[in-house]
């Protein structure tokens, strides 16, 4: 009888511990969803990888230039922001606020897209106009 009580007690403690571990985990998961994330886009072999990046508003995006030539990251529609030149081996980051298409103004065929909170934006197939870019 004593043994039965002892085993029951151990089982109850184990279940209790399990429960107390599960609840904080769920809370932690909720927090992860709300905490801004950091995403990396590699510029490699003259491409943005990945070329389409899904993020949440407020997340940070870091572009890392792994090519041997300079690149930049410039908003495509109105050139409202640009990284300016990112040298080989360099990087640049910004906080995502809305869905936007971007390109490299030095190599205009290189294009990418930021999709914020699932809101799609179109990428152009045209040659982007050559104008002065805005400040980052």
């Amino acid at each position: 009888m004593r043994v039965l009580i002892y085993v029951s007690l151990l089982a109850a403690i184990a279940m209790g511990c399990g429960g107390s571990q599960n609840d904080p985990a769920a809370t932690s998961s909720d927090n992860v969803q709300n905490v801004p994330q950091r995403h990396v886009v590699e510029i490699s072999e003259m491409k943005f990888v990945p070329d389409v990046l899904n993020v949440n508003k407020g997340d940070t995006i870091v572009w890392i230039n792994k090519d041997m030539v300079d690149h930049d990251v410039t908003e495509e529609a109105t050139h409202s922001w640009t990284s300016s030149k990112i040298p080989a081996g360099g990087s640049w980051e910004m906080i995502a606020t809305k869905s936007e298409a971007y390109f490299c103004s030095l190599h205009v065929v290189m294009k990418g897209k930021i999709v914020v909170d699932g809101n799609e934006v179109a990428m152009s197939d045209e040659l982007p106009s050559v104008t002065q870019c805005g400040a980052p």
Partner: protein
Amino acid sequence: MKNPEIFWSGIILSSLLCITTSFAQNAQTLSDAEVASVAVVANQIDIAYAEIAKEKSKDAEILKFAETMINDHNAVIKQASDLVKKLGVTPKDNDVSKKLLSDADATKKTLRSKSGSEFNKAYIDNEVAYHKAVIEAVEGLLIPEAENAELKALLQNVVPALKTHLAHAEMVQKSLK
């Protein structure tokens, strides 16, 4: 000349194909020092074309493209120079690099004889043809001939940039029509 691009492509491609075929027929090989020389010369030639464009053109797209060619090809030359220095190799003149240079002299003379929109068209047509020919030469001659693994890897890494330059040149060419 109804289609200048065909004219430029014909000259450049036949010249490089001639060289490649001649090497194959005569079972000649390029040493790594000669491969390095051809790679550097090919980049220097496109920089020279871009310098002419900067002197002669007022078109924003042409000027922007020319600036990119100068920056990118200088970056490739620096990588190649750093590598041959590390490997203790001195780039060596050879039949391929000499032929590239003599053909480039003729092209530069033709480009300098033109002005305005005629120059813009001739420059970008030549860029399209030149990059097509160089991509073919790098993939079909230089990469197979390179023995050192780092030199081979450098040449392989240059190909995406050359292909991007070609796509960019074709976009500018389309916008001028």
